[in-house]
C-alpha cells in the first residue's frame, strides 16, 4: 500500500464518523429554508450520544431477527461507507474489493434485514414501511444499476476507483452516457437517503412512513445504530454521486479534497429539492424511478452508437 492509499484509506475510515454530520447539514439547511434557525449540523452526534446511554427494549414476541437487525444493518452500511471512492489510489479493502455492484448489494442487504425485523415485530407501521421500501427498491435498483452502467461504460470497469478516475477525465464528460448518469444519480441520492419527493424523513404521519416505519419499535443503542445508518447512507450515496459523476481533478490530494467538498453542496441541494416539492403519491414514485432508469438506458444506447466520442 502506498502512502496515498494509506491516507485515502484513513479518510474512508473517518468517513464512518462523518455521515451523521452530513445528515445534520441537510436538516440545518432545511430548517433555514423553512424560516427556522434549527439545530446545528452537529445535532445528530448529540442525539447519538443520548441514545447510546439509554436502554434498549426487546418487544415481547420478537426474536433474533429483531435483535440482530440493527447490528447487521450497521455492519453492512459500514462496509459500504468504506467503499465510497475518494480517489483512484484508494485502497482496495482486501475483504471487500472495490466493486460498485457490491455497494448496491450491501444496501439491499440492509433493506432486507430491516424488512425481516419488521416481519418479526409484525407491527403495522413497520410492515407498511418495509413493504413500501422493497416495492420502491424494485425500480430503485434498476435506477441504481443503470446509473452504474452508464458510469462503467466510459470507464471500462466497475471498479469504484476506476469510475472515480473516469469522472476526472475530460473525455468522459463528452459522452451522453455520463450526462444521463449525472441526471439519474440525482434521483438516486433522493431515493437512497429517503428524501422527498420519494420519502419524508421528518414525517410524523405513521401511515405515510417508509424508512421511519420499521424504526418505530427500536430504542436506545439499537436506534442509535439505525440513526447512524441513516446518516451514513447520506455519505454513501452522496459520495458515490460526487466520486463517480461530479467533476474533480485527477490528482490524489486535490481529487479527494474536491470529492469531499462536493458533499456539503449535495446536502444543500438535497435540502432545496426537499423543500420545494410535496411528497409524491405512493405508486407514482416507482414510476419516477423507472423513468430515471430508462434515462440511463438511453445513455447506454447512446454509448453503443458511439455518440459523442
Amino acid at each position, binding site marked *: 500500500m502506498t502512502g496515498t492509499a494509506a491516507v485515502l484509506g484513513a479518510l474512508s475510515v473517518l468517513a464512518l464518523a462523518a455521515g451523521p454530520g452530513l445528515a445534520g447539514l441537510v436538516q440545518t439547511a432545511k430548517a433555514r429554508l423553512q424560516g427556522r434557525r434549527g439545530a446545528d449540523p452537529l445535532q445528530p452526534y448529540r442525539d447519538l450520544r443520548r441514545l447510546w446511554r439509554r436502554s434498549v427494549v426487546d418487544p415481547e414476541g420478537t426474536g433474533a431477527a429483531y435483535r440482530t437487525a440493527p447490528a447487521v444493518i450497521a455492519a453492512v452500511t459500514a462496509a459500504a461507507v468504506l467503499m465510497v471512492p475518494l480517489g483512484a489510489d484508494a485502497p482496495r479493502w482486501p475483504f471487500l474489493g472495490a466493486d460498485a455492484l457490491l455497494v448496491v448489494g450491501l444496501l439491499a442487504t440492509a433493506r432486507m434485514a430491516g424488512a425481516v425485523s419488521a416481519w418479526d415485530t*409484525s407491527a403495522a407501521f413497520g410492515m407498511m414501511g418495509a413493504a413500501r421500501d422493497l*416495492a420502491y427498491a424494485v425500480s430503485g435498483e434498476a435506477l441504481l444499476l443503470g446509473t452504474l452502467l452508464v458510469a462503467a461504460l466510459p470507464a471500462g470497469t466497475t471498479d469504484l476507483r476506476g469510475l472515480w478516475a473516469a469522472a476526472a477525465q475530460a473525455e468522459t464528460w463528452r459522452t451522453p452516457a455520463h450526462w444521463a448518469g449525472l441526471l439519474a444519480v440525482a434521483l438516486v441520492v433522493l431515493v437512497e437517503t429517503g428524501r422527498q419527493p420519494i420519502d419524508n424523513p421528518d414525517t410524523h404521519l405513521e401511515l405515510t412512513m417508509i424508512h421511519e416505519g420499521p424504526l418505530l419499535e427500536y430504542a436506545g443503542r439499537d436506534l442509535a445504530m439505525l440513526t447512524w445508518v441513516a446518516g451514513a447512507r447520506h455519505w454513501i450515496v452522496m459520495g458515490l454521486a460526487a466520486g463517480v459523476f461530479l467533476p474533480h481533478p485527477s490528482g490524489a490530494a486535490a481529487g479527494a479534497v474536491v470529492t469531499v467538498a462536493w458533499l456539503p453542496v449535495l446536502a444543500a441541494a438535497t435540502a432545496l429539492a426537499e423543500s420545494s416539492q410535496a411528497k409524491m403519491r405512493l405508486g407514482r414514485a416507482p414510476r419516477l424511478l423507472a423513468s430515471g432508469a430508462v434515462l440511463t438506458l438511453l445513455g447506454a444506447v447512446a454509448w453503443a452508437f458511439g455518440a459523442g466520442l
Partner: protein
Amino acid sequence: MAELVLAGVALIVIGALLPLRRPLLAAGLVVQATGIAAVGVGGAGIAIGGETAGAAFSPAISPAFGADRLTGTMLALIAGVALPAALACIAYLRHVARPGAVASLFGCFVLALAGVVTARDASALLACWELMTLLPAVASLVADASPPVRRAMFEYLAITHIGGAGVWAAILVLAERGAIGGPPLGPGGATAGFAAAAAIVGFGTKAGLGPLHAWLPRAHPVAPGPLSAVMSGAMVAVALYGLVRVLFQWMLAPAWAGPALMTVGAVTAVTGIVYAAMQPELKLLLAHSTIENMGVAAAALGASLWLHGEGAGSPAALAFGAAMLHLLTHAAAKGGLFIAAGAVQGAAGTLDLGRLGGLSGRMPLTAGVVGVAGVSLAALPPTAGFVSEWAVLQGAFGAARIDDPVAGVVAGGTVLLLAVAAGLAALTVAKMLGLVLLGPPRTAAAAAAVEAPGPMRAAGALALAALAGLVLAAGWILPGLASMVPGGIGDDGPDLLDVPATGGLAPAWTLAVLAAAAFLLTRVRGRSAARAPIWLCGQPELARAPYTGAGFTKSFRIAVDGLLRSERDVEVERRGGLVHRVTSTGRVPDLVDRFMYDPARRLALAAAAHARRLQSGSLRAYIAWLGAMVVVCLALLRAGWLS
C-alpha cells in the same frame, strides 16, 4: 474419479431396487444417498481434475456415456440437490400412498438426470432426456393420483413435449451433420438457424424459459417434496446444460442467438419473479422463483454467446462461469427450500402462506435453511447467490460494451431487467421469510409445529453446508467454471474474485468480516434489554394484526397495476342505512395463461372434438403418438426436408 461415479451409479441402481420391498425403504434410500454422494464426489473430482473419462462425444447413434469437466460439474450439481433430497425422502415418503414405488422412481429419476449429462451420443441423450421428463410425472401420479395432480401432470407433459420436440429436432439435426463429437456446425445457413432456434425452444421449455414456462409452476408444486427439490434444483439446470452443449460446443451459434437468449432470459426472469411475488402458497412461490433464476442463467449464457461471437473471450468466459455458478447456487438454495417446504408441510399441515408464521422459534434448523437459502435466492451479499448474480451482471455489463447499437438496448435493458428481478426477488423472499418464519403463528397448527424428524433435519443440514461451502469456495469455483469455455480467465486464488474490469469480490472474507462486525455490534447493544409489549399506538396486544402476503406486495402492485391487471371486488352489504359487512375478493391473474394458454387450450379442445377418434386418454397413447412424431421427423430428415 470415473470409477467413483460408476460405483455410485451402481449403488443408486441397488438403492432403487431395495425399496420395492417395503421394510427396505429406508435402507434403499440410504444406499441411494451413498451412491448419489459417490457420484457427486466423483463428478466434482472430474470437474476439478480436468480428466476426461469414458467415451467421447460421437455422432454415431449408438449409446455411449462419458464425462468431461462440464459433465462433472453437472454431476456434482445433481448430487448436491439429490443427496439431501434422498435423505428427506426417508421422512417424507411416510405420507404418500405408495412409498416404495416413489422411492424407487426417485432413484431412477436421479439416474436419468445423470444419464443426460453423461450421454455421449444422440440416442443416449434423447433416451435419458425422455426418461427425465416422464419419471417425475409417473412418480407424482404414483404418489397421488387425484384429479388436480393428474391435470397438472397432463399439462406438464403436453407443454414439455410440444416444446421438447425442439430438443429432438436440434439433436437429430446436429447428429445427422456429425456435429456431436465432430467439427461444430457452422453459423451460416438455414440449418444452423433452425438448430439454434429449436434448441432454445426445446431446452428452454424444459428449463422454464418464457413463454413456455407454464408447466413448471403447475408440475413442481404437486410433485412429492424431495422430488420437486430435484426437479426445481437440478432438472431445469440439466436442461440449460443441454443448451450449452448445443450452442457452445456442437455449433457456432448464429449472431442472433446470443442477444435473443439474453432477451428471453431477462424477460423470463422478470415474469417469473413478478408472479412468484404474488403467490399465496410456498411451493408455488418457489416454482415461480425457479423460472426467474433460469431466466437469469439464460441471460448470462446469452451474454456469453454474444461476447464469444464478438471475440471477447475473457468476458465471454466470465459470463459463462456466471451462468454455471448461478445454476449451482440456485440448485443449492432451491433444493434446500423445497426440502424445508416438505418439513413445513409435515409440521404445520399446510403450505398456504397465510396459515403459517412464527416457525423460526419452533423449527430452528428448518428456519435456518429457509433463511440462508432465501437470502441466497434474493442474491444478497455475501451469499453465493450474490456472487453469481454479480458475475451475471458483469457479463451483461460486458455485453453492453459490445460495439453494436443493439448491445445498448439488449444488454442495457438486460441490466435493468435483472435489477428489477433482483429487487422483486428481495420482496418475494422477505414475504416468504415473514409469512413462514416470523411474526405470530397464524393458525393453531402453526403454533403447535415441531421440528422435522431426523432424516429431514440431516437433509436440511446438508443443504446449509452446501450453501456455506459455495460462499467459501466461490473464489475457486467461478474461475474454474469460466475456464470451461475456450479462452478462460485468470485464476487469482481463492480470496478475491479478481476479474478484469471489476473491482473484485471476496465473498468468504466479506462474510467473515461482516459477521464479526455484526456480532460485535450486538455485544455492545446494552446489557439489560427490557421486555415490553409491542407498541401499537396505545392499543392492547390483541390489536396486533399481522400483514397478509397480498398486503405486503400491494405497494408494488399499486405501482404496476396497469400491467398486472389484478382483479378486485369489494362488496358492501348495507341494510337499514348501516354497513353490515364488507367482503373483498381479489387475485392477480397470470397474464401468460390468460392471453396465451387459455386461447390455445380452447383452440386445442375444439380441434380435439374433431380428432376424438385419435384420443384415447391414456399416457401410453400419448407416448406412442410422440414416438410416431419422432419417426416422421427422422424420415423427413433422411429425405433431406429438414436440412
